[in-house]
Each structure stands twice: as structure tokens, then as C-alpha cells.
């Protein structure tokens, strides 16, 4: 079973991707979501979500995937 923390991070990432630039082209939305994650998420959280994208990533929506892949 996936740990609760990662479940929350995936949910939050999808939520941010969906809400932070609705209606904008997906690349703009992904960019803004990545920026949001950089400005508001602790590095440990970003590290985990990046790890998840590399290992699996299936529960991340498309814009969320794109956003996470843009994280430094």
C-alpha cells in the first residue's frame, strides 16, 4: 500500500495542476504549477513527488506530470 504522505502529495499536485491556471494552455499551467511547487513546497516534498514520477507516476494527471518533470 502506498504511504499516506505520498498519497497526499499526489492528490495535492493534481489539485494544484488543475487549479493554478485553468483554461491556460497546458504548458503554461504546468509551468505555473511547477512554480507553485517550488515556492510553497519543502524540498523533501518535491523530492518525493519527483521520485514518484520517475518510478511510477500513473496517478498524476498530465499537467501534474509535466509540472513535476519541470522541477529542478
Amino acid at each position, binding site marked *: 500500500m502506498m504511504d499516506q*504522505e505520498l498519497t497526499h502529495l499526489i492528490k495535492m499536485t493534481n489539485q494544484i495542476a488543475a487549479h493554478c491556471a485553468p483554461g491556460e494552455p497546458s504548458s503554461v499551467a504546468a509551468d505555473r504549477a511547477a512554480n507553485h511547487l517550488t515556492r510553497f513546497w*519543502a524540498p523533501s516534498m518535491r523530492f518525493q513527488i519527483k521520485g514518484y514520477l520517475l518510478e511510477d507516476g500513473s496517478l498524476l494527471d498530465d499537467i501534474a506530470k509535466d509540472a513535476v518533470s519541470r522541477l529542478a
Partner: protein
Amino acid sequence: MLQYFDPRQCSNPEIDYGTPSAQGVLVSLTIDGRTIEVPEGTSIMRAAMLAEIKIPKLCATDSLEAFGSCRLCLVQIEGRRGLPSSCTTPVEQGLVVQTYNPRLALVRRNVMELYISDHPLDCLTCPANGNCELQDVAGEVGLRAVRYGFEGENHLAAERDTSHPYFSFDASKCIVCSRCVRACEEVQGTFALTIDGRGFDSKVAAGQDESFFDSDCVSCGACVQACPTATLMEKTVIEQGQPEHSVITTCAYCGVGCAFKAELKGDQVVRMVPYKGGAANQGHSCVKGRFAFGYATHKERVTTPMIRDSIDASWQKVSWDEATTFAANRIRQIQQEYGSDSVGGITSSRCTNEETYLVQKLVRAAFGNNNVDTCARVCHSPTGYGLKATLGESAGTQAFDSVEQADVIMVIGANPTDAHPVFASRLKRRLRAGAQLIVADPRRIDLVSGPHVQAGHHLKLLPGTNVALINALAHVIIDEDLQDQRFIDARCDLEAFARWRAFISEPRNAPEALSAALGVPAETLRSAARVYAKAGNAAIYYGLGVTEHSQGSTMVMGIANLAMLTGNLGREGVGVNPLRGQNNVQGACDMGSFPHELPGYRHVSDDQVRQVFEASWGVSIGAEPGLRIPNMLDGAISGTYKGLYCQGEDIAQSDPNTHHVEAALRNLDCLIVQDIFLNETAKYAHVFFPGASFLEKDGTFTNAERRISPVRRVMQPLSGKADWEATMAFSNALGYPMAYQHPSEIMAEIASLTPTFSGVSYQRLDQEGSLQWPCNDAAPSGTPTMHVDQFVRGKGYFERTEFIETEEKVNRRFPFLLTTGRILSQYNVGAQTRRTANIGWHEQDLLEIHPHDAENLGINDLDAVQVASRAGETVLTALITDRVQPGVVYTTFHHPESGANVVTTDNSDWATNCPEYKVTAVHLKKVERPSDWQTEHRAFTETQVSLLTQATKRALDETA
């Protein structure tokens, strides 16, 4: 000639001028040979008082309009017949007034004689002795005898009403001046009191001639304050006598930030009296601030530091040194084992600015990370995010005074009469003067319909549809061309506006398209939008019904959009006004309590800002954001986050999804709780630092209008240390030295590091009473209204606000929506108010349910009802009421055993993680017994209380 420009703020709050101030052109008149100029509309009584001529009076007081009933303030005016009352007679150019001559003296003495002929002459044993206007005036008019005797019909045997826990009503002492009745009407706006009967039978009656406790009295204390005799008197004064000195301080309950005179004998507070000079409350109060201060000396206060190795062990009472060393060692061990980022802190919105500042400084400088957050996370974090993005500053735009200029007031997701009662009274006063009211709330709050207040529109939307509402309103304004295009062109980012305009104009944002989702008829939405756009000055006041949603930040941006769209920003009477829940939630946010921001809302990634703090603090500060409260709890469960310093917050009760919070707290290796009581969170703690109530320390609070007000110590800290001293001791034990001698030194440091605070100092606060930030060289007297000529961010930014439904939806398994709120007599988790007589008004949290739903489920009033969500279940007592709409249930969360947050989920605002307290899909079922959680909670509480009692006993044994 003396000239009086007489605005409210220039008069002396210690003097009763008899009637309110007026504003108008100056007119000159002569009173007792002295010529003075005062504004037109001023009464002769007030003009005389301004010239330091005191006219005897009983029914007049300057918080109320003139009434002219007592006939003591009569004066003689040259060229006029009779003896007019000076309170009801306005000044006129050239009047020549005499306030004293033999004729006036005789009439006054005769009037006074009549009053005293029906008044008990027990002055020496009367609780008002030493503070009785009737006694004073009898002295002033020189009454020496009562010729009528006391044998005739009188009221001396009238019954006393002692039903109220905080004051008594002794009708035998009443002079029927109506000050109490008028205070209830004019100041409080409740209209609970009336004069019953006529002529000699006239008497003050509460409600429908009920006892005060049973009536619709809201216990604000305005009547007690207004009473010139001992008729309405605080029970504490009856028991203890008149106070002998007083200290002006700021209330520690809600975000209104009322100024109070703490009136004392020695270091015992006898009563708290609202201070007329307080800019936020102007002499008014509510039941909490006025009366519910007894918690500060409650027997359950924990006043000794305590430690223990595990949460199953009994507490050990130790010295401050031992406690701070123990805590510091544990934190350092954890950091060695799990890394520097495995610990963090939570600052309190209940503590002072200086104290929250110190905790975030301790986390950043001594813990060496940015893992600091504050309880604003769970209430107004979306306000900070949304207003910063659109307007450029994370704060409300107006002073409370602004409401007096509003023509239409829109209240969204706030319940001011319960949660911000003193502001609600000002708001209602404006409504009675003719302003229009729009209420957007799933529930029929008191403001919707009350004495002389009626909302023109009650938009009874379904929980979770706020953004649809704000979009529909904005759509109408564009659709019907009601926007203030000149304002937009001059003040806003036009590219963003064009994009937003295209979005909002789409047919899917029309009221007709959104009406079904909202549960509000399209025509009602259109009509409300027209009222908001066309009325002139339109002001929005909002609360946690806006922020505590998965789209909380989006909704805040939608509100800002609506205000910009109609040009309702940058002047008095308008604006975007978040009503803050806690006394210092604004201040806690200002002070750098968020993991991504240093004091003054500056992002930690800003090198220049960081360097300023690094130079002052002598440490390096991380450029990356730290963990927020929900992230800390997740980390605790997964085992990466191990130590927490929690200052004055009860996350075990106040945060959502209690099961999750409890599991996280149990997983911590070191939980340090600083509080005045062993709260729910402290039951999981390893270290307890005893906190100090607001009466025990100096500092400042910042209220919802950005007003920084002084908090002044009236008694020694019961634990020996105020909270700022406890944090300093902990920091010193951690090896990061702090050596402030007084909170004023902490404020000086804040001012030196924070541009919006650079003009703030204790000296200036003493001079001005309070200051609204930004307060600096550009605004030396502070800033009542923000964004006057331009927005803080430069151009106002229209953010696109797509309505995206929450994932928390009803289905066949969970067919009802639960929403939560507060009640007047209680405050948040209830730790304070439950420990006062306020408990008499709210012995338990109730589940409000619509009669139709109750009938379908076979639920009767006071039945036990199981409320189950995807997160957990609890059992509450039913209250059947049509305040809620069918399909929606409502409860408060003031009692820990209610477990309201066992039911709420970990859904949260997309931008800030502010929990979605306001929407939980639930299943309801009539049951016979408490939930498993409640049974376990009771057992756990019993265990923890016994572990505390053992510590108390052991300490006693050791001292014996």
C-alpha cells in the same frame, strides 16, 4: 475663543460628554459667559462639556443619542421661554446659555428629590457606592432632604433578577432613564430590552418580560455599562467591591481586537470594561471579552513546567531550567539522528506579535530550518495567498470605521453576530441607517433577519459552490455592463483583465447555467449582482466560509476580482474585508510564521531579504520553504518528522481528520506544548511549558483591520515566565542566545527588519493608542485604508477563477453535507470559554438538521445521531431547525468530546492546504450510544488527567 473641531478620536475617552460628537460647520455660542465654537449638530450639553462646564445629567451618556427624559440637564437660553434640556437642544450661532442660576438649581433639586423619593437609601452598602451617577448628581444639585417620605407607593421592594451569571438586575434601584434599553438598541442592536408598562408602572423588561438569562439578551454588557446606578451591576463588583486601579489592554478573543480597561484590586481583575478610546470597538464589547475572563485564574491552569519520557508515563514537575534543557537535548538528539529538518514549530495566533516572532526566529535560527507554521494555516491562509496575488498585500483593505460609509454590505461565509459580535453591532447600526445587505451563506445566520435588520438577498448556496457564486455575480456585472471601466483602466493589469473578461463572459458562468449547482435562482443572483454593482459604496466582509474550502484561495481571488471590477477599493466604505477568527491571526501571519515567508510576507527565496535577517540574527537562513502543518503531520506518520514545538495551539482538537492528527502526534519523539491548560494536544506531549494568559504579559496584537494594539500586563505570569520568556529560555537551552529584557525590544527588532512596521514602537503605541500597518516613513500615522492611489502590487490582477467542484461530494452512502461554524458564547476549541460561566449557554455542540430530513430519518430533537464521513464518525445531539436547508447539517466544534473533526476530511485548499472544514459528505443515523472514538477519547482523557494529577500529588509530597 475656544474652538472645538470635535471628531470622535480627539475627545478624551475618560470624559462622558453626554451626547455623541457631531460633524458640521463650526458655530459659536456663549455658555456661562464663555464663547466657544463647536460643530453644528452638537448638543448644548456636549458644547458645555467641551468647555469644561459640567451640566448635571442622568439619562444622557455620550455613547447614546440624546433622550431628554431625566429633566436634570435643563438650561436657560437668553430670549427663549422655558428651560430646555441641554442634551436635546442643538447649538445655534449666537446662543447665550446659562447652565446654572437659582431657578435652574431649584428645578434640578426638585427633580432629584422626586427620583430619590423612590430610591433605596442604602448607599453605604450599595455595590455602586463610589461609582454611582445618581449619588454624584444628588451631590451636585445639593439635595438635602426628601419631603415626600417613603411611605407612598414605590418600587423599593421590586424583585431582583440574578439569573444572569455575570450581572444582576436590581429593579428597586432603577430610575427608568432608559439608558440600558437604548444601549441594547443603539449600541448592540439586539433590542432585547424594553420599557414595559406606562407611567408609574414603567419598568425595564428583558425579552417578553423574561429573566435576563432566558431572554434574547446576548450579554454584551452594553446595558451594564450604560446604567448610571446599581441596577445593572457586575456580580464581581457586588462580591468584591469597586476596583481601585485599571490598565488599558486588548482583548484576547476574536480578531476584532477590542480595547478594554482591566479594572483591578491588587492583581485581581474585578471586571473588564470596554474602553471608549479603543479604535476598533469604541467602547463596545461582547459576552466573551467583557465577562469570560475567569479562565485566566481557573483551577485547571497548569503553572509548572513538566516533562516525561513517553505519553504513557506520568508527568514530572520540574524547574524551567530542567524543562528547557530536557526539550533542547531531545530536539538536538532527533536532529542528529534524523537530520536538521526533522523538527519544527507552530506559532500561536493567540500569543502576541513579539511571541510569534520569537518562535519563528527560534525555528529558523536555533532549529536551523523553515519548518514553522501557524494556525492561520487552517483558517485564513487562502486570504493571504489570494489577496497577495490580486492586490499585492496579504491583508484586509479597510478599517472597521469604513463600514459606516458603506451603501451595500455583502457578507459571505461569515457569521459576524456570533463570531465577531462587536463589529457586527457596528455593521447592524449601518444597516439600520439604510445600507443594503446581501448575505451569502448556506445557513440562515442571525444577520439574515433580525430586529430592524433584513437582508435584501439571502443567497442560500450549497456548501462548496462559492466560486460558482462569485463567478455568476461577476458575469452579471460584465453581461449588464455594470463594471467601473474607468477604475479598471486606471488601476488594473489590462491584459489580465481582458483574459479574465473573456473567461467570465462565457455562458457557463452565467447565473442561469450555475443556478442548479448553487441552489439559488438565477434571477436572485442577477438582482444581488446589480445591487452590489450599483449601490455606490459596496463592501465585502467574509469569513472562514470562504477560505475553508478546496477552492478557498480561488474564492478569495474571486472576491478581489469583484471588488476591482466595480471600483470598490481604495477608499472608505468599500473593500475586501476578511474577518479574522483569532485575536492575532493577522499578526501571526505578519510575523513570518509561514514556512515560505519571513516577517512582512517576504519569500524566503529572496536573497536580499534573507541577508537582512541573517545579518541581524547571525545565522544563515534556508532559501527553500519549510513544512506546513499538514505536511509536518504527514512526515510524522511516515517517520521523517520527529519533533514539534507547539505554542498555544490545540491541533488535536482544531485540525481536521482527528484520527490522522492523533496518529501523527503519537509518532513524535518529542512534542513540546506551551499552553495555559493541558489541552488535547498536550495529552500527547513530552514537554509542557506553562503558558501565560494575555493578562500576564506585555506585547501587541494585530486585529483584522491591521491594527496593532498594546497588550499590557496586569498580573504576574502564574508560571513565572511570560510566553516570550519561555521561548527565550528554550532558545538559550538550544544554544542560540536570546536576551531581550522586554517585549518592546522585540518590537524594535521587528520594526528594524520589516519595512511595513518600521514606524511601530511601544512609545508610539502609547501615544497613539494603536497603529494600522503599513506604518513607516511613507505612512507615519499608519494606513487605515489600503491601495488608495494604486495597488500594492502595482496594477490589480484579475485572476481567472474556474469553478472546480470539490472531491468531497454527496453520494448514496454519504447523502448529507456537514458544515461547521461557531456560536456567540464560545470561542474556537472552547479551552477558555468552557472554563467560564459561558458554558451555561452552550453545554454541548448540537447537530442542526432540517425538519424534513429529521422526519425522513426518524430523528427527534435531542436524539443521539451518528455522523459518519469517509474520515470517521462521531455522535452528536440533534437540534431540528429550518436554519439549515434540507440536505445540509451543521455543527460547532467547541467541545473536544463532540469530535466534529473526527468527521472532517483531509481535503484542503489547493494553494495553501487550508482544510476543507466547511464541506464534508456524511451519513446520518439515529443511535443509542457514543461512537468508538468518543469512548476511546474519554478513556484517554481520563488516563492523561490522572497522569497530570499524579504529577501534582508528587510535587505536593515533595514539598511536604
